[in-house]
């Protein structure tokens, strides 16, 4: 009985210590993730403005942003932007990682160089590419014109569809290096024996890629896709620096309006409502992506 009692105390004591051990981490998560989110939800159902007395608003803020003139258009634009940029980014990252996963002269230098676009702050990238694509004096038009490819300069940033294409291109340029690095890290963790066994079985290059590489990096691909979807849905600084959201509002994405509602129009309630909607859309998309991924892939288990 004494031994059992001691064991019980020991178990309780260990559990008690464990709670203390994880308490700092839990506190940090609560302070920096949970609290802001709950506060955003709270703000989204209230009149929150530095110029107006606070009041309960119910769902009026949600109604205001959903019925606003910009909401549907900017949501559509954001979804197009994300749907176009994410697959290209991931495919390009996969291709580049596959190339860098080989030994060749200068491979280490190339691996460092490929990170360069990602290392440049996005707003700076926007300014650089603005100079490149500028319709009046940009380098691209000059190159194409001198090469005789175009008869006259093209308004890359001043034509709505072209500006959208440019923004997607630059988003891919800024994002694919990080995707490459993550996928490359996953590829380098694949045991060499698997490739040797596949080779002995007569698998060619493509077969090894599809039956060895791809299944082994599923978890990382899932993470990269989710990360890039979130980057697409919340993109803001790139369009701000590259096109100023124009021409018209052709490249103005939903995240700009979250910012504009809160800080430009001083309606933190509307801004919070928009942020909550954006977070919910992100969550739905993440869950949808996770549904498409074979069970266990994220924890490295076998396909269910």
């Amino acid at each position, binding site marked *: 009985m004494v031994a059992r009692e001691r064991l019980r105390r020991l178990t309780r*004591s260990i559990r008690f*210590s464990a709670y203390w051990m994880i308490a700092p981490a839990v506190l940090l998560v609560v302070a920096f993730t949970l609290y802001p989110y709950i506060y955003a939800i709270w703000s989204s159902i209230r009149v929150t403005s530095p110029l107006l007395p606070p009041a309960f608003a119910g769902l009026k803020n949600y109604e205001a942003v959903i019925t606003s003139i910009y909401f549907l258009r900017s949501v559509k634009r954001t979804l197009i932007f994300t749907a176009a940029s994410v697959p290209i980014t991931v495919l390009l990252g996969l291709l580049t990682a596959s190339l860098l996963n080989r030994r060749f002269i200068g491979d280490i230098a190339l691996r460092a160089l490929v990170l360069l676009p990602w290392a440049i702050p996005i707003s700076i990238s926007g300014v650089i590419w603005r100079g490149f694509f500028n319709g009046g004096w940009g380098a691209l038009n000059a190159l194409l014109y001198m090469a005789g490819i175009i008869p006259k300069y093209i308004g890359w940033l*001043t034509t709505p569809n072209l500006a959208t294409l440019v923004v997607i291109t630059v988003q891919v340029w800024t994002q694919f290096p990080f995707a490459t690095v993550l996928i490359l890290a996953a590829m380098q963790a694949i045991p060499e024996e698997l490739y040797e066994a596949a080779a002995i079985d007569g698998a060619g290059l493509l077969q090894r890629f599809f039956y060895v590489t791809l299944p082994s990096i599923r978890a990382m691909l899932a993470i990269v896709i989710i990360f890039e979807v979130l980057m697409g849905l919340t993109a803001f600084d790139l369009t701000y620096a590259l096109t100023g959201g124009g021409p*018209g509002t052709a490249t103005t994405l939903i995240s700009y309006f979250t910012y504009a509602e809160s800080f430009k129009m001083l309606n933190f309630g509307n801004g919070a409502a928009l942020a909550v909607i954006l977070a919910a859309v992100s969550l739905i998309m993440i869950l949808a992506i996770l549904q498409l991924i074979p069970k266990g892939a994220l924890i490295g288990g076998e396909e269910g």
Partner: protein
Amino acid sequence: MSSTKFHTRSSKIGRRDFLKLMGAGAASLGIAGIAGCAPKPATPAGPTSLDFIVWSYGIETILDNIKQFEAAYDNAFAVSLKDIAWGEYHESMVARFTAKTPTDVCYNGGDWLPEFAKAGWVVPLEDHFPQALDYKSDIVSYALSDITYNGKLYGLPYYCDITSFQYNAKLLEESGIDGPPETWEELTDQLEFLKGKGFDPPMALEIAVELPTTFDNFTAMAYGRGGEWFDENFDPLFDDPAGPMGQQLQWMVDNYKAGLVTYIPHETDVQTQLNTGKTIYTVLWNYNLAALNSAGTSPLAGQYTIGLMPGATHETQGMAKMYNMTQMAVDRGQEVMDACWKFIEYFAGKHNGEYKVAERWAVEDGLGFGIIPLYDDPDVKEAFAAFFDPVVLKEQASLARSRPHPEWEGIFTEFARMQIVSAAAGEIAVDEAIESMSNRAKELKEQYA
């Protein structure tokens, strides 16, 4: 058993150790807290510190002016400068004031003054320093209107400028056109002609949804037609799509669709576009002419000039940017307020009988000043003659007026800008944009009544 005993003891010790550590930590914090509450040892009197917030323009000049100010007062003041990008200034200041980030003196515009004043973030200068009123007689009317709210003088001008119609006079003459247009319709004819001559696009406008100046540029163009946003009660005057505002918006749509006008998201890019020699006309804040006509920054320097704003009235928008003292400075006490006044007077008023800083901005950067005595300053006259046509500038300045500024104007302009750029690019109909803006103005008036 011994193993269990050992682990049990070990675990108890761990928990006790943990609690001891927590106790020691709490005790340390308590001691630190008590120490914090204890009277601070007397510190030697140092310079009075001031936090000065500006938007990012001419930072080197500002820093040099600060240095000269500090030297002029034997380093009795230490000014800390923080600059914020122009496009984010309004919201950054809102965040700054809301979070009570130290701010003693800041730049402000007439369009944001009512909002900042109503929120209690900036204070009337004349309430604390009645001598500020002595400057009123030296300030041009549209500027005075912009720095006054509810009949009180809130600041002194940093610079005052007009939005002007600018063009490359040399290229225009070479193309065979005698002079700038009188009306917007005549301008369309000229743009078509110029496009035929290879100028593509013949006109560039600084228009972007995320750029505050977009609203200024549109307002100035519509003022040329005699348009106005609000009456004295801040009821909309623009709600007829066939009125001057609607007409100007339609003009932009038609000329954009015809490829005669392009929209560029920043004034520096508009300047570069003009310097390609492919574009003749623009509408910008007048100080841009100084950069366009400076050999150091422009390959086509000397070719640009000002024309009267096209339209029936040729009116344009005039405005003042100002130095404001904040409530936070007031809260810091009389010593800080006195420092603020000395600083504002040095930067915006007279020091040793001269408008030294305003004159410097005018001579070096072509910034308008709105200080009547400076119009007769020989250095200013000489510098301005190199940048602008003084006769047309004077005429255009006399036709400038400031916008009416309701307390909710900052919010309205953000909303209206979205409608203006959407309509101007043909995304929504002009009627729809005008109706949305009108409804929003009415909502805001009711909400903020």
